[in-house]
């Protein structure tokens, strides 16, 4: 069912932290976050009207070009997670978006994942424009999401500045 409410972010996924995702102490392993965020990416494209089933008749798929993960607070096994997604930018072939992963009941931010995906023709394996009817829709969602503000993690370059995820932290001992 395509997403229609433009006044809020797209809810793209819900899950519990599965036991297999935990380390020895039950903390969700950061090396697996992008696997779970990829499920949210699937939910996001479905909400945009470009699900796997909708892409197949067009001989299209979507590939990820880049992915930036920021880890703010580590959830533990069994905790419920809720993912929302903001469409930041779009052009004829690419979509730039950011997922937030929050504790589903307490609301705190666990991590963000900012991505760029490109539409690809499955026969040529080359990038291809999105169908015309989707572009206006993508642009409308982008404009509506812009009004909701930009997350601090968007457009961030990795590094040791004050904005490093997980901060503010207490000084080293």
């Amino acid at each position: 069912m395509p997403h229609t409410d433009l006044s809020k972010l797209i809810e793209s996924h819900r899950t519990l932290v599965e036991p297999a995702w935990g380390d020895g102490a039950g903390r969700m392993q950061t090396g697996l976050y992008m696997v779970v965020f990829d499920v949210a990416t699937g939910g996001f494209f479905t909400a945009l009207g470009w699900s796997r089933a909708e892409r197949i008749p067009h001989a299209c798929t979507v590939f990820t070009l880049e992915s930036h993960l920021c880890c703010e607070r580590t959830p533990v096994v069994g905790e419920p997670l809720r993912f929302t997604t903001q469409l930041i930018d779009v052009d004829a072939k690419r979509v730039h978006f950011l997922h937030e992963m929050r504790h589903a009941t307490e609301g705190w931010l666990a991590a963000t994942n900012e991505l760029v995906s490109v539409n690809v023709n499955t026969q040529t394996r080359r990038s291809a424009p999105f169908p015309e009817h989707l572009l206006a829709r993508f642009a409308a969602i982008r404009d509506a999401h812009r009004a909701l503000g930009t997350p601090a993690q968007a457009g961030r370059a990795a590094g040791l500045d004050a904005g490093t995820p997980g901060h503010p932290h207490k000084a080293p001992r």
Partner: protein
Amino acid sequence: MTDTPTPFSDYTDEVRVEWVDFNDHFHMGYYALAFEHAQQAFLAHLGLFADGWPDGARMATREIHVCFLRELRERAPLRFETLLLDHDASRVHCIHRMLHAAEGYVAATGEIVSECVDVADERHAIGFVPHVDQSLGRMRAEHARLDMPEQRGRAIRLVRRG
């Protein structure tokens, strides 16, 4: 022997069976895990996990930026080249190239910031011991002389061409 610096290149792996999608391609979600392993190997090389390991500490990944350049298939042999970009009392910032070990092409880059933290509270940083801190300083000075991947320090945005 020469004193020409080289990236840290000891770490190898392969595209493991459990990392592939239904098409036998390396699933994008698992690249971060492979890059974390490479970062751990680099820190182990510097002695962090031996006598340089502070009590009650663990390494926490703070951020990872992956750029996907070419596809890889199941069982493809991988090697990694690691460059230390920056560090402070408790954090390291590296960029890794992931290469197809037989064909030589760069399949992806992964830029990681990880921090030594208290196992009981990840908001508490724990400082590196002095000899690890010194090793990091030497390594960083050496690596500063090397060619950097162009993906270093990249912020995500859609650049319009033409």
